[in-house]
């Protein structure tokens, strides 16, 4: 679109994208009386941070954050490590059952996670991992799409590099760690980023595994607040704003890797 309408239309769309956030932040800063004002006040007048301190005291927000951070770090760390080992093996090593393993990876990409949750729940019960961080993390520790992307990244490295390394007496482990890891670093960051965001935002599986509120994540805590504070949306809004700050910070800092990841087909 090369006419003057373009910036106006884009600004309208941007406003539609951003307004819901603005409206929630505003709700989180209002008092009990002001929030249900009619007609609604569109501007930030008469605001305070008191809802934040109240929500922080009323529900164990710091515990929710702690749980989420632990689960997110474990998930991202395990997925990056295991997916890169697997991706490297599939791209660069010869072993019995290689075709079978790759078939598993491809099938896992096709099989909806929502269906897997039924048997995985039984397994998690049997392993005694209900109400345990590992119960959330382990069943999805290796993400098939991450393996697939890393395999492609290792495959893209020229064969000569591998041959030269072996000529110099390199073993597969040092080839992987010292030579090829630096070369696939952008893909590693993309995988780390998307598993971080996924773990932070995940809802259905943590809800199934973490039944004791003591282990609840931020997203589970938020959902719980909807019942507790039915008539106090300003508290829920404060919790929602807090829940979103970390993902926004990560997004702003690593923006270019998000774009890279989407170009490679990661995400949803």
């Amino acid at each position, binding site marked *: 679109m090369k006419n003057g309408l373009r910036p106006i239309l884009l600004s309208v769309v941007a406003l539609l994208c951003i307004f819901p956030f603005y409206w929630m932040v505003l709700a989180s800063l209002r008092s009990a009386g002001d929030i249900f004002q009619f007609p609604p006040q569109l501007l930030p007048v008469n605001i305070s941070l008191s809802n934040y301190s109240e929500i922080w005291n009323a529900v164990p927000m710091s515990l929710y954050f702690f749980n989420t951070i632990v689960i997110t770090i474990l998930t991202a760390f395990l997925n990056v490590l295991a997916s890169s080992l*697997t991706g490297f093996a599939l791209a660069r090593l*010869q072993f019995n059952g290689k075709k079978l393993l790759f078939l598993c990876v491809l*099938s896992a990409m096709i099989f909806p996670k929502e269906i897997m949750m039924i048997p995985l729940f*039984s397994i998690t019960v049997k392993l005694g991992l209900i109400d345990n961080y590992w119960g959330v993390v*382990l069943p*999805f520790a290796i993400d098939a799409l991450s393996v697939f992307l890393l395999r492609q990244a290792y495959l893209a490295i020229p064969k000569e590099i591998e041959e030269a390394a072996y000529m110099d007496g390199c073993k*597969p482990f040092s080839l992987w760690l010292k030579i090829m890891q630096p070369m696939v670093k952008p893909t590693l960051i993309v995988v780390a980023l998307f598993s971080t965001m996924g773990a932070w935002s995940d809802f259905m599986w943590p809800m199934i595994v973490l039944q004791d509120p003591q282990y609840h994540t931020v997203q589970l805590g938020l959902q719980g607040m909807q019942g507790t504070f039915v008539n106090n949306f300003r508290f829920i809004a404060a919790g929602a704003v807090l829940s979103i700050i970390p993902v926004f910070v990560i997004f702003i800092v690593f923006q270019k890797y998000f774009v890279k990841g989407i*170009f490679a087909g990661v995400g*949803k």
Partner: protein
Amino acid sequence: MAKSKQTFFFALPAFVFFAVFFCYPVLYVFINSFREENLITAGSFIGFENYTVLLTDIVFWKVLLNSFLYILVTPILIAASLMLALALRGNNRLNRIFRSAFFFPVVTPLVTAGIIWKWMFAEDMGIINYLFSSLGISSVKWLSAFPENMLAVMIITIWRGAGYYMMIMLAGLAVTDADIEEAAILDGAGYWQRVWHIIIPQLRSTIVMVFVISSIAAVKLFTELYVLIPGAPMAQKTIVSLLFRESFEKFNMGYGSAIGILLFLFTLGLSIANLKLLDRPDKP
């Protein structure tokens, strides 16, 4: 390629993982779909009963229809993301700022997104109904009536999806052939003529990809409904909502497994298409 003892170290975790957390569960869900299973009593083999009960249950057909109706957002998402990508094609500062603005909804966790919009859609006090009333439109029962609540969920899906698919479209646009476009400009083709006859044909596989990804996501919709309309009757929800209720609230794991197998079959075509698109060599 090297054959070394170290190979073992690389592939072993994946073999263990896929055996325990993929192959066994897939087998288990398949077998369980032919069993009565509730995790407490022993359970028993009941043949096709779960399937016959499901297929004769009107609620199952309703949630299945709803799940597929959510695919209706797909054409809107394709049009919106394509328009945004076309408008933000150049890599300048202003365009990058706009792209980021459109991307904030994408990174917003689903529960948070649901809460934000529940506040906007509130029927008495919500800003949307207030806007409608000031425009003289009667207020909409966004959360309590069907299919209005479906429309509300679709709006959230579009809000969260447009920026994401815009990025995929931009990736597609980045590899279109600039020479053909310049030739068309010299031939006097207008902007929309170029979009229709030159750009869109080259974006075909990207558009198919967006269609496939957004359709799969639409069929598997769950969390938005769980947050937005928890109390709505099951007939207004989706197939994953039914799967969740049967498996994790009623603990009818056998019945839930049968729902899961049918969901798998219904999405199989889309999933295979998705896999093929990921593996195509001309991918940007």
